[in-house]
């Protein structure tokens, strides 16, 4: 029954047009960024940096490098928006539309209903990240040759060069880690969605939480406390582009994100469990 309910939840989720906003925007933005790199001088600073360190720019201004560069704005700005939108909708939209009352006139437990919905949200997050990766590769491949991966992420002090095979591996691991960011923000919005509020309010609250955490994390005073900030651990996907990968830090962030997610889910379930569902 759980699988049947999950299938139906996905059916509902992917039956709505707004679910596809994220996919469409990724498709457009990845394409535009790839075109900008191809037809402007946007890659010139990279070329200079590579040549000044004795590398051939042609080998590294490649599909993988452009796809990874495109990943940064998508992961920082767009992905949180779309997963928060869906997470905020999952319960609150049904409550607003009145369908939640129809569901809860049936003998399904509230906890089970939330678990099904959360899982559907997680599957959406995985699908969105997967498409982000696929679109990045496809659109950059249309305009750039296959080659090595050059990554420069000054904030994480990462400057790495990989041959094509290793670069593709890092690109895939990076997306696997990006799923944790997407799921965590979705779960945060989902938690707010379980309270008695409009779906837009749940989404805005979740995004506000993310932005406030991000701003505070970057205030010099809080530098030594950055471990405590939610967003600090969301950057986890960037770490896999370091050479070597700081696995201890990755594991630490993964475990903390698991804790954040468990807390968000527990708070959401508790709020939903004690709540009165009215018309």
């Amino acid at each position, binding site marked *: 029954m759980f699988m049947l309910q999950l299938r139906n939840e996905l*059916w*509902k989720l992917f039956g709505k047009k707004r679910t596809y906003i994220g996919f469409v925007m990724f498709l457009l933005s990845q394409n535009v960024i790839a075109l900008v790199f191809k037809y402007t001088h946007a890659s010139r600073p990279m070329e200079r940096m590579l040549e000044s360190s004795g590398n051939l720019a042609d080998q590294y201004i490649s599909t993988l490098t452009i796809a990874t560069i495109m990943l940064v704005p998508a992961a920082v700005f767009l992905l949180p928006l779309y997963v928060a939108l869906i997470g905020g909708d999952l319960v609150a939209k049904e409550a607003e539309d009145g369908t939640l009352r129809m569901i*809860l*006139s*049936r*003998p*399904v437990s509230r906890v089970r209903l939330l678990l099904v919905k959360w899982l559907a949200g997680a599957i959406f997050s995985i699908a969105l990240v997967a498409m982000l990766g696929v679109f990045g590769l496809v659109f950059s491949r249309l305009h750039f040759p296959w080659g090595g991966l050059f990554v420069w992420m000054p904030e994480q002090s990462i400057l790495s060069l990989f041959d094509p095979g290793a670069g593709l591996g890092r690109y895939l691991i990076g997306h696997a880690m990006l799923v944790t960011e997407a799921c965590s923000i979705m779960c945060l919005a989902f938690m707010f969605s379980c309270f008695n509020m409009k779906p837009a309010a749940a989404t805005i609250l979740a995004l506000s939480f993310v932005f406030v955490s991000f701003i505070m994390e970057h205030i010099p005073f809080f530098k030594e406390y950055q471990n405590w900030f939610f967003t600090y651990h969301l950057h986890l996907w960037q770490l896999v582009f370091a050479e070597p990968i700081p696995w201890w830090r990755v594991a630490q962030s993964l475990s903390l994100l698991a804790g954040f997610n468990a807390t968000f889910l527990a708070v959401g379930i508790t709020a939903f469990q004690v709540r009165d569902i*009215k018309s």
Partner: protein
Amino acid sequence: MIELRDVTKRFGRRLAVDRLTLTVPAGEIFGLLGHNGAGKSTAIGMMLGQVWPTAGKVLVRSQDVMSHRGRALERVGAIFETPAFYDYLSGWSNLVILASYTARTSSRRIKEVIDWVGLTGREHTAVRTYSHGMRARLALAQALLPQPELLLLDEPGEGLDPEGIHEMRQTILRLHRELGLTILLSSHLLNEVQQLCKRIAVIRQGRKVFEGAVSDACRSPRWYRLATGDSNGAIELLRSARLIANANGERLIELADGVGPDSVVRLLVKSGIAVYEITREEQTLEAFYLSLMRDDPQRADKNQSEAACSCGSKSGAT
């Protein structure tokens, strides 16, 4: 089938339901009446485990809804005032989705229910294209999917045209007759309630002010039709003896508190006025309902106890 024991519900400081005790026996069509905000939907919400009572106990199919919600609602269907669906999906998909929250349901069963409500041919069309009446049928279909023993109908006639209301009435009677369902009907349509229900409860500001048979509600507890040889003299005499509280025209009298028709007859006969008839006045459910809504709660309580007494001594005529 449904039992509410001293159920109270507060939303913050607002008292929505106040010590409500209600029993709906199996096999009955029971009407729940009350003004907007009286607490009817809250009471139905508590029966469905959607609203948690602040105090008291709610039993559905002999199961405590708070602790055994799953078992209590296994064979319960519900229809709300404005049935909400996933408009972008077809009627069939909506039924498949809603059914999955009860139990695995075969396509044959879904088809059977669609046939029963008369939606065959439109089940694969998106719900957003459905008329109000078709949505009402789909709502009925989803309520019938779990093969219910009990149907909770919260304002099912809201927004329907006269044909729709007629159809709804026929459907409820058919459900009761053919499937033997127990039905709790919450409605503002007093005429429908009068035609459909055997028993009713009236809620006012969260408190039950009447529970009893519709026939008792329609029988005025205090107003009597009196036929005598001297109408004006009789009313004067009864008024001076303080046996009546009010009179309407020459034939309608309202007995004073604690006075029975026997006292009236005794006095009139003793005074030499011929009494041809004294009958309890019949009133419409609407008149009864409005009298309850106009009364202050204490008086309403008195009405209820008088109505309850009248169940024991129904012979109003002498």
